[in-house]
């Protein structure tokens, strides 16, 4: 190989406060190659592409584009140099139209004025070439998530990139749209574009991938051909076998029904006529795409997502007042997916975060009083049970690693009696060891009779941890799988649109 690779990373590191997100990573992307990045949440994939795309700059190491060292100060700079990225988090302005978003930052002008007609023409041509059926004049806020994803992709294609970064681009597309996108990627590949592609889907790796680079805990583990067997890829990704991560699931219990939900419809329409029940000691998995209603259904039960109609029964008795406080008093707890956004008060000590949902409990003190010693004792006990590292409950939560922050959040379920625990994406952005610890705790709670509702986008988690799985699609419960029926194919086939043949 005489020619320099199209894009090359040499010993690139990036640290955030408290965590080394990337540790001396090397990567090589050739022209006309689809290079798949594979790894757990938090393995460093997002950090890596944010460096490549100019969102951030590396602390050490260098990035070379066609043999020349580059340092992008912004996304625009990267784009001008021929590196375009499509992130999972959209960079769209909701109030603007599709066309306005596509030309944003590099608007066609006539003199000093914007050339609106040209903008529309550019957008139209791009959308046609990509085969996306979108109206250039539609406002982005009125589009579905999949349609917004298409706008985002169109935006990236505008600058005729030499390197294209795609972060799980098919995650919210229908199967037909996804096929169309993959065909497009193949077409680009043939034109000599280098594609850096993040996906969790084996099918996509097989179909368009050339090589796969596996990241784990910020380090590059290996670069292997895309034909590598799935088991081997999972082993590289996690560093262990499935059996070492997931504890054995206790047999499905036939306990009393704890929660019964009948015909639940939310005011926003995110959940439509959903009915389900779960009993003591059972782990019920909610699977589905982002926005399928799986998370909203749990949130509605906890009183965060306003309910339009339907019935909620706890132990057979109807619940009239559905608010977090009322549900907590009845032994129902919901732990949110984003610990920074909704879960933890980052500036407060771990102790206060652990007991936050137990402030109404008499154990913490009589009447309005809060007994500092009782609370400290409880916090120490909880820290021990969740294996908090360092075991310092007085430390500010912010200073703990992501995994330990997640444990602090989870400890709320131990700080008060909980009969129904709803976990929403409980392992996002945590390392493997913490993941295994969290799974052990969940199974332990279930064995002691707590009903567990597990909302997760992490398929292995759903597959290995659930007695029963409900697959949500467009707000409705589309399928129910029990015991041996729970398998990757069986679950996944309900994720997407069904199309007329």
């Amino acid at each position, binding site marked *: 190989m005489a020619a320099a690779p199209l894009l090359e990373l040499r010993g690139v590191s990036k640290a955030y406060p408290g965590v080394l997100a990337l540790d001396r990573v090397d990567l090589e992307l050739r022209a006309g190659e689809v290079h798949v990045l594979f790894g757990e949440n938090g393995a460093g994939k997002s950090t890596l592409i944010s460096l490549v795309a100019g969102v951030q700059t590396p602390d050490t190491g260098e990035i070379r584009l066609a043999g020349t060292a580059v340092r992008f100060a912004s996304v625009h700079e990267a784009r001008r140099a021929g590196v375009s990225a499509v992130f999972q988090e959209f960079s769209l302005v909701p109030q603007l139209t599709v066309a306005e978003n596509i030309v944003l930052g590099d608007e066609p002008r006539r003199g000093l004025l914007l050339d609106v007609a040209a903008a529309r023409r550019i957008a139209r041509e791009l959308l046609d070439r990509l085969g996306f059926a979108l109206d250039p004049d539609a406002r982005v806020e009125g589009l579905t998530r999949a349609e917004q994803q298409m706008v985002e992709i169109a935006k990236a294609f505008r600058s005729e990139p030499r390197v294209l970064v795609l972060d799980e681009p098919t995650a919210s597309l229908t199967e037909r749209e996804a096929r169309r996108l993959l065909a497009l990627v193949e077409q680009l590949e043939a034109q000599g574009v280098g594609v850096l592609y993040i996906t969790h889907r084996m099918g996509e790796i097989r179909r368009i991938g050339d090589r796969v680079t596996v990241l784990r805990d910020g380090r590059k583990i290996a670069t292997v051909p895309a034909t590598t067997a799935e088991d081997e890829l999972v082993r590289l990704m996690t560093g262990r076998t499935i059996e070492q991560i997931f504890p054995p699931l206790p047999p499905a219990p036939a306990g009393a029904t704890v929660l019964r939900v009948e015909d639940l419809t939310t005011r926003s329409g995110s959940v439509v006529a959903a009915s389900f029940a779960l009993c003591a000691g059972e782990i019920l998995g909610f699977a589905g795409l982002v926005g399928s209603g799986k998370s909203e259904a749990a949130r509605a039960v906890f009183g965060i997502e306003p309910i339009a109609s339907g019935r909620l029964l706890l132990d057979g008795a109807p619940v009239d007042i559905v608010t977090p406080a009322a549900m907590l008093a009845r032994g129902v707890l919901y732990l*949110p997916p984003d610990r920074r956004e909704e879960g933890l008060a*980052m500036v407060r000590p771990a102790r206060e975060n652990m007991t936050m949902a137990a402030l109404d409990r008499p154990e913490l003190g009589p009447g309005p009083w809060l007994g500092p010693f009782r609370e400290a004792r409880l916090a120490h006990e909880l820290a021990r049970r969740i294996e908090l590292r360092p075991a310092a409950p007085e430390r500010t939560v912010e200073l703990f690693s992501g995994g330990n922050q997640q444990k602090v959040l989870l400890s709320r379920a131990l700080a008060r009696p909980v009969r129904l625990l709803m976990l929403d994406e409980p392992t996002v952005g945590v390392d493997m060891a913490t993941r295994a610890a969290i799974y052990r705790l969940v199974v332990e709670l279930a064995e002691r009779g707590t009903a567990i509702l597990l909302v997760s986008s992490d398929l292995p988690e759903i597959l290995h941890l659930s007695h029963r799985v409900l697959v949500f699609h467009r707000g409705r419960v589309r399928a129910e799988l029990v015991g041996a029926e729970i398998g990757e194919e069986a679950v996944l086939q309900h994720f997407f649109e069904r199309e007329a043949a």
Partner: protein
Amino acid sequence: MIETDRATALAAPGPAERVRLLLVRLFVRLGVLPFLLLIAVIVFASLSENFLTVRNLTNVVRQAVYLLIVSLGQMLALLTGGFDLSVGTILALTSVVSASAMAAAHAAFPELPWLSIALGSMAGLAAGTAIGVANGLGVALFGVSPFIMTLGMASVGFGIALYLTGGVPVYGMPVLFGEVFGFGTLLGVPVPILIAALLVLVMLVLVYRTRLGRSFYAVGGNIKAARLSGIDTRRVLFTTYVLCALATSIGGLLLTARLDTGEANIGASMPLESIAACVIAGVSLRGGVGRVENVVLGALFIVLVQNGMNLARIESYLQTVVLGLLLILAVIADQLRLRAMASLRA
């Protein structure tokens, strides 16, 4: 921070580096206040020999009482992630209403001064707290931003205070009121200082030893997390502004006793000074962080600086400039502290 930077420049590895690290640690742990206090004491002691005398320092504490009490209330608002710009108005309205009611009662029952004092004080507290109730309703129930709500109420309250008095000071309160609550002493300690100490004590217990106190930190730390933890965030926010107004109102009564008149024009500088006292004391403008003890020191510091500038014959207009700069400096120091914290972690 200035010292630490200089130390960096000198940074020969070894003792200098160790001193720098120690200073950074101290700064992260204690905030900017101890450093500022030290600087202020050194500067003013060198400018005036009267500064470091027991008499002068006692005077500082006595003068600081009013700002201190208001700052305790302000701290609650800041803890929950808001602030209260109407504290000056609350002070003014309390003063005007209590003085008017007291004077009227005193005219009716001249032989019962304690009755007039009680009636007048109640009226004043009620008027001041009413502003807090309005603030609380606006912020908690209607979701108006604390900035707009308290700014609006500041105008409303000030207008009412002026309207009630026509802009002239209110006289005719029982002499006893000023004698006891303005200038009186108990066991040798000035009564205003005793009352302030009592309020500090109440505040310490409220904030650190009650569920409500914890809720302030939880709501300010992450209001969504607090809500998902079953905390009634609206009730907490409402209570915050009511308690802030109540504390301020008590400060207003004491100030009225000290001045022996009801005035609509007192307290104009209170919003700035109380926020400055809190922020210099390490109360975060983002909510969720702050300690009562430090706020006490913060209020003392502000008054100490004012006192020192008076002794050094700095013109009062210029003093206002210094105060504003101090507030901004405190916020910058807060940012630097966050960065220093991150650098220590890495």
